[in-house]
């Protein structure tokens, strides 16, 4: 039982990371109608910024993270301003390809700015463990779980209650009509890209201490976040979050109880089967194609 609790707690930590990245993807998808494949690479780039500040300038981690968030905002705005805004007339498939191109640009830029050596990133809370009925959780893990949940609560509050949130949701449901109604859709997409970049950066900073900061530190986060979006459905904001936690917990439980080698593949196969039978995802509504 204690292993079970321990595995679930660990999964909540990774699930939070996937959920933050997935939220970024879904916000972009809803406001700009683009599947944001470069979410992970942009997060990776900003994680590099944080790691370089910590290693090079010896800044404390929280200050470096704030700086990283600033560059993330800048980067998100730049991408929206120079690329996405100018690609409005491009077909949806071609828009996806643009973000695939962005991945390559960021993977190329990272070694150019920060060198080829992998960097390491410290944890927010270096030591200490919590005993929960035989299961151990590091304070840092607890911090990550709580940070993820608090951020998501704030985000959903913003989306549901504030004026900006209403603007985002209007843009998401119908962009041209929202523009006609006086919603500044350009600012909304700009805000969405900045927000997604910040979420990517945070998930990067949370996952990086478990490995080292390299150009492919975010690959698994990116893949899992995308799959979480598919599992949860692209129609709601909370679906992908749910999907992210399910994937993290499912993968770890399958690895523990079924097979330590095939757990990950099995989870992906199950997700694949699930979306074959329920194309709209877990909580999505079925889209009716108009002819």
């Amino acid at each position, binding site marked *: 039982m204690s292993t079970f609790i321990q595995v679930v707690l660990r999964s909540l930590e990774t699930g939070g990371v996937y959920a933050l990245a997935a939220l970024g993807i879904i916000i972009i998808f809803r406001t700009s109608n683009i599947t944001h494949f470069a979410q992970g690479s942009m997060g990776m780039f900003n994680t590099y910024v944080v790691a370089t500040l910590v290693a090079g300038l010896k800044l404390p981690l929280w200050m470096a993270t704030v700086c990283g968030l600033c560059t993330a905002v800048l980067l998100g705005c730049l991408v929206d301003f120079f690329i996405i805004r100018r690609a409005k007339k*491009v077909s949806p498939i071609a828009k996806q*390809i643009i973000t*695939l191109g962005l991945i*390559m*640009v960021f993977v190329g830029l990272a070694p150019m700015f920060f060198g080829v050596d992998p960097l390491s990133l410290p944890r927010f809370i270096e030591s200490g463990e919590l005993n929960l009925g035989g299961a151990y959780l590091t304070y840092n893990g607890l911090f990550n779980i709580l940070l993820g949940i608090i951020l998501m609560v704030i985000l959903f509050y913003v989306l549901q209650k504030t004026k900006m949130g209403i603007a985002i949701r209007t843009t998401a449901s119908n962009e041209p009509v929202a523009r006609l109604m006086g919603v500044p859709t350009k600012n909304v997409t700009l805000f969405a890209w900045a927000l997604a970049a910040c979420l990517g950066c945070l998930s990067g900073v949370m996952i990086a201490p478990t490995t080292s900061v390299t150009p492919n530190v975010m*690959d698994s986060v990116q893949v899992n976040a995308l799959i979480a979006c598919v599992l949860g459905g*692209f129609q709601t904001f909370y679906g992908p979050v749910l999907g992210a936690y399910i994937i993290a917990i499912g993968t770890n439980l399958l690895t523990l109880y079924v097979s330590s080698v095939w757990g990950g593949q099995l989870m*992906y196969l199950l997700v694949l089967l699930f*979306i074959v039978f329920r194309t709209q995802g877990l909580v999505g509504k079925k889209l009716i194609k108009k002819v």
Partner: protein
Amino acid sequence: MKKESNTVQPSATPVRSAPGVLKNPYIRYILFGVVICLLPLLANSGIMPSSFVVNLGSVLIYSIVALGLNLLLGYSGLISLGTAGFMGLGAYISGYLTDSVGTPFIVALLVAVIIAAFIGVLVGFVSLRVAGIYLAIATLCVSEILRKTFEELDQFTNGFSGLTASYPKLFGVSLSREMTFVLLAVVLVLVMMLTHNLVNGQMGRALHAMRGSEVAAQAMGIYLLKYRLIVFAIATAYAALGGALYMHFVKFSYPSIWTMMLSLNILAVVVIGGLRSIYGTVIGALIVFAVPDLLLKRIPVIGKIDGIAYIFTGVLIILVVMFYPNGVVGLCNDIKKLFTRGKKKGGASDV
């Protein structure tokens, strides 16, 4: 639809001003192949460094793979990010069969292609249910499953330490590097001809109709399931063929080669070269896989920057998608049009 399928398509031969023999597209493909086959001679006579042969050989391999993706992305409008996984599958199957089981090269190649095509058919079934954005991620999912399998199934794949293979043996003769290069060129020309036939026949028209509107295509009597399955089977078969050839030309394979970055690179080949263009795909492969290694790294300052190859390809993808959706091949046509328009003094008014 069915009555027309027996007649030869006149649109297959676009160039009208070329002399008689060159009008035949097949002869042009063969001529193209012969020109490629002459490249190793250049290396032998010292005009070109012999390391170029390896680079150009992988360009040929990636062209084969990208032609498959072009069938999906260009002709059918289906986006797939699973190319690298299928390439790896082909590489590992043929590598394992020739190396450990001792089957002849051709048999191993066929087995690899058939197994991959079978999995491709399964993905085709998924693609009927899962459209658009979901499909890209579903194929990415398949590719990830395959890559993890390569890592874990180490009695077949040798795990992280990688599998090695030798140059292919054809009819009892072990080929040298140059001969393998010629083999690659022959396979590429065959694949180009096959693709040409596919897209200019009934299937090509069916795919065009499906890309425009699935519902309209169905109303015209096109059986979606059949063509989806065929196009996915062919695309994955090409990928596996390319992978198997890669295994025997580059002679090693690690799980870390077959990642999403490779799928992206092949996607870049199709987008940059030109959607729905056979020669464009080869040009695209040359730009993505050869130009960074052969040219960019030789430029003094820029060449020293790490990751310049990725930046080059990434920026090129974005620029081509945003400003030049026809790809580099469109550039050639536009230049040609510019010249003919100049001769006619602005008389051309076709859109």
